[in-house]
């Protein structure tokens, strides 16, 4: 909760500083987000690699676990494509790319901004990246706050699936608490890892 608040504060602080043109030039460097993102991905990898029970977790992977991330991807994309009916001003591919963030707002928005800048120019790319950011922020917040509700109405898998990428970090404690089942850790973490790998693949695919 405090974490989310801090995330929101850093975003709002950035928006405020940007809105009043207070940011020094080096903060406007176009390659800065990609550099920070690279650092982030490297650190996420280091976190996974240095886990105490990495070996045990890999051994506990059952083939059925591959199905949950696949279900999340299929379900999300299928229904996200329906949103196209509301927004005919966007391309279907763009909406699918936005939906492919699975709650990972930082990665998805930066990726979409990068990809789309090449094809449609920076102005429209920033628009799409902003929608992607907001969409995935909303998804993460609803997943986090609705964790108990989704577990009760659906199953523990519903909470994991809706959390998307956040099933491995931000939402993990809430998922475990709502289901009262610690054995969900490998499923949830694995779900997050597979989605994390699939996000760049899907976004690249839909942005082309």
């Amino acid at each position, binding site marked *: 909760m405090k974490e989310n608040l801090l995330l929101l504060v850093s975003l709002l602080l*950035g928006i405020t500083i940007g809105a009043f043109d207070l940011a020094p030039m080096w903060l406007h460097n176009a390659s800065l987000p990609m550099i920070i993102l690279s650092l982030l991905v490297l650190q996420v990898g280091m976190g996974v690699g240095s886990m105490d029970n990495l070996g045990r977790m890999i051994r506990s992977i059952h083939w059925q676990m591959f199905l949950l991330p696949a279900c999340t991807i299929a379900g999300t994309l299928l229904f996200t494509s329906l949103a196209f009916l509301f927004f005919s001003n966007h391309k279907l591919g763009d909406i699918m790319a936005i939906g492919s963030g699975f709650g990972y707002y930082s990665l998805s928005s930066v990726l979409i901004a990068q990809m789309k800048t090449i094809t449609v120019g920076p102005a429209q790319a920033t628009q799409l990246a902003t929608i992607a950011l907001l969409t995935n922020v909303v998804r993460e917040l609803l997943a986090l706050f609705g964790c108990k509700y989704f577990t009760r109405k659906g199953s523990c898998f519903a909470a994991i699936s809706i959390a998307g990428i956040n099933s491995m970090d931000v939402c993990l404690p809430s998922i475990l608490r709502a289901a009262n089942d610690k054995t969900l850790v490998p499923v949830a973490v694995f779900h997050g890892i597979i989605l994390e790998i699939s996000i760049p693949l899907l976004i690249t695919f839909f942005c082309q």
Partner: protein
Amino acid sequence: MFRILFLLFLGIGIGYLMRNVRGIRHVEKTTRLTIFALLFVFGITIGSNHALLNNIAYFGWQAVVIAVFGIVGSFGASYLFNRVLTRKGKQK
């Protein structure tokens, strides 16, 4: 995209090799700080785009619709997943 995957696996490799180094535990903390920095810089990009900021309500509503559709889809898919899994469990 390959850069992202490469960095991810490079990180996993480094993390695995350094798993006994005490400092590696701090990587969680620095990851969080990096996310803050990323959002901060992204916020600046949004904020300095005044045309975008003026339309935040318009973008926000689109974002909510797309997010809710995604969530409903995930919920439905996980429901099917759970059905298949429990049916298999009963057969055993």
